[in-house]
């Protein structure tokens, strides 16, 4: 079982999101990403060449994934760490819980990890009697609210400072109730104080990985807060949870990807902390974890290799596609109903939880193409959404009116003479019917469209017949 999905109800979710005034206000903040990325890209003439390089590295690694995983695993063991394999979410959760129990862990701090969200790790840890504390500020806030992230790099972007203040007052009962939390600085400083105690007390630290390096057996995390570092250096053990496609060959390859990651994500030239971790602490090290474990998760990814969704495995989770998506900007991340929102989520979700559950998401696109334009590893996201739509149609998963409607339209569209004739008749009929007002505020079978705007009445003749008449006149 993965984290529970409501992706099948995208339409209802989106409708709710659009009428939620508070959410609509908060979503404005996500628009800052666009300008910041553009400015960072403008400062680096090699950016597009780096994107090509990043894409080639990912393609090369995926084509040799079995061999790079073997090399990576060997190096992790050499440096004193252990590698565990999980075929699905259930197995990954069990491995993490067994590791925690074997070390007698009562509390766990966590760096931000989308894989942890994907496998629903926090609930499982709590159910096993282990306290799990998210330490990324955004993740901490949504954990207090019992929510999933609404953005893969800015998990609490759907909230305002006022929401955060309310949550902190509810959760931090032992702090003076009359304290001021009016400024974002005060909220940050309170979170720092509360979480500092958690960092120092934790038995195990769990982080994700942005990249795994086969050459050295290293895991890389990228953060701005430093929470991922405190998570991994203070407790007795560091557990890394990562999916199998995170591996890259060498340190140099990781540097190519890091150069496009921060710029595409937050518009920074480099994130504040890029941390390379290899094995447990060395014999003479005065700090760092005494045990180092890596849990490698498949959860459907190996089956995507070699198929039409293989390109999606290049994704480095920067969030640029959602930052530039008009649909995401209108409805926010929660409407997508699972872990991964926006265009990358629309492609990945059906792959991971099935087209029956996630098949609605590829329809949540205007095909404007901005996601592909900004993707640092050039994933053809609109094309892949189209593939999913075709599958959904073939498998008869789309609603009946849509399927019959499309069949009806295809009957005419594939018979040009008939199409022209009926379009001509329809245009004339609508011209006559709409003569009075010159527009329609309601039309049969088009209520969804006319609910929000009027349709202008046709002028009588179709474009094609007008064109024929005009070119005849010129001759």
């Amino acid at each position, binding site marked *: 079982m993965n984290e529970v999905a409501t992706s099948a109800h995208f339409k209802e979710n989106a409708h709710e999101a659009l009428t939620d005034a508070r959410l609509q206000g908060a979503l404005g903040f996500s628009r800052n990403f666009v300008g910041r990325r553009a400015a960072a890209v403008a400062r680096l003439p090699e950016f597009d060449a780096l994107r090509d390089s990043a894409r080639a590295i990912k393609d090369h690694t995926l084509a040799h994934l079995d061999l790079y995983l073997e090399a990576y695993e060997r190096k992790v063991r050499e440096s004193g760490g252990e590698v565990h394999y999980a075929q699905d979410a259930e197995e990954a959760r069990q491995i993490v819980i067994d590791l925690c129990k074997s070390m007698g862990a009562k509390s766990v701090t966590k760096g931000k990890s989308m894989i942890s969200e994907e496998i629903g790790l926090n609930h499982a840890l709590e159910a096993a009697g282990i306290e799990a504390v998210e330490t990324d500020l955004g993740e901490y806030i949504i954990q207090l609210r019992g929510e999933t992230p609404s953005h893969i790099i800015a998990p609490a972007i759907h909230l305002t400072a006022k929401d955060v203040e309310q949550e902190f007052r509810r959760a931090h009962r032992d702090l003076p109730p009359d304290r001021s939390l009016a400024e974002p600085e005060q909220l940050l400083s309170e979170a*720092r104080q509360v979480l500092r105690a958690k960092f120092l007390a934790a038995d195990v630290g769990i982080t994700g990985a942005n990249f795994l390096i086969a050459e050295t057996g290293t895991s890389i995390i990228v953060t701005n807060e430093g929470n991922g570092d405190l998570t991994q250096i203070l407790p007795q053990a560091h557990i890394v949870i990562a999916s199998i496609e995170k591996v890259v060959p060498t340190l*140099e390859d990781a540097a190519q990807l890091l150069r496009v990651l921060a710029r595409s994500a937050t518009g920074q*030239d480099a994130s504040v902390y890029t941390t390379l971790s290899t094995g447990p602490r060395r014999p003479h090290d005065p700090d760092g974890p005494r045990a180092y474990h890596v849990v490698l998760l498949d959860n459907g990814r190996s089956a995507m290799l070699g198929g039409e969704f293989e390109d999606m495995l290049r994704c480095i989770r920067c969030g640029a596609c959602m930052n530039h998506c008009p649909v995401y900007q209108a409805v926010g991340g929660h409407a997508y109903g699972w872990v991964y929102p926006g265009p990358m989520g629309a492609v990945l979700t059906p792959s991971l939880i099935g087209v029956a559950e996630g098949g609605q998401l590829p329809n949540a696109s205007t095909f404007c193409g901005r996601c592909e334009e900004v993707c640092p590893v050039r994933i053809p996201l609109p094309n892949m959404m189209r593939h999913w739509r075709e599958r959904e149609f073939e498998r008869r998963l789309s609603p009946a009116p849509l399927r019959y409607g499309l069949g009806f339209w295809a009957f005419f569209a594939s018979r040009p003479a008939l199409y022209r004739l009926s379009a001509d008749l329809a245009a004339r009929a609508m011209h006559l019917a709409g003569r009075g007002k010159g527009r329609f505020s309601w039309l049969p079978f088009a209520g969804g469209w006319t609910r929000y705007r009027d349709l202008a009445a046709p002028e009588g003749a179709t474009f094609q017949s007008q064109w024929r008449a005009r070119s005849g006149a010129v001759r």
Partner: protein
Amino acid sequence: MNSREAIFASIRRSLAVHGDEAPRRFEVETRLKEAPPGVVPKRGQGDLPARLATFKAEAERAQASLAEIADWAGAPAEIARFLRENNCPATLRMGADPRLAAMPWSETTLEVLHGPSDGRDVNAVSAAFAAIAETGTLALVSGADNPTTLNFLPDNHIVVLTRDAILGDYESVFAKLRGAYGKGGAPRTLNFITGPSRSADIEQTLLLGAHGPRRLHIVIVG
């Protein structure tokens, strides 16, 4: 079949390979051995004065503060000045780095503590392994000389760096790392640090001092 075998079998089924193909293995071994550099931005390149200028500009963009001093012996006075001007207590924690140990700390009134941090230190000083002009980034390696906890727990992190350790790019740091730890080897932790800790998770407002240091002060020697 255990999960490891099942995942490898599934990968190989999807890729239509059996895993023993000599050309594939050769290609992977070559890449791991040669580690080709890819596209390296021009921004960080140039001679030492050029790299120093780029490093300073980029580090300041990332909200680090900077000072340049002539020799290691001048570091305690500069660090004392920085702490005084920022109204910080006159205490300082450091690891066993011989370059830091050799400094004339007794010429200042700073109370110097040694070893890793347990979270109660306000100030710490580390010596950097290298720095990267391209992004104004410091590279610090774990060990008894410079414990990793000093990079994250104190409010103020001061990093001393020799001028000639300012390299152009990440690739040059990797070359230096291979010199120190052997090809394929690595310290437990390599921290690339660009500016002080920050978060923009509340309304996308950028605030310094999230979980790590609120201030990062870089002292360049030489």
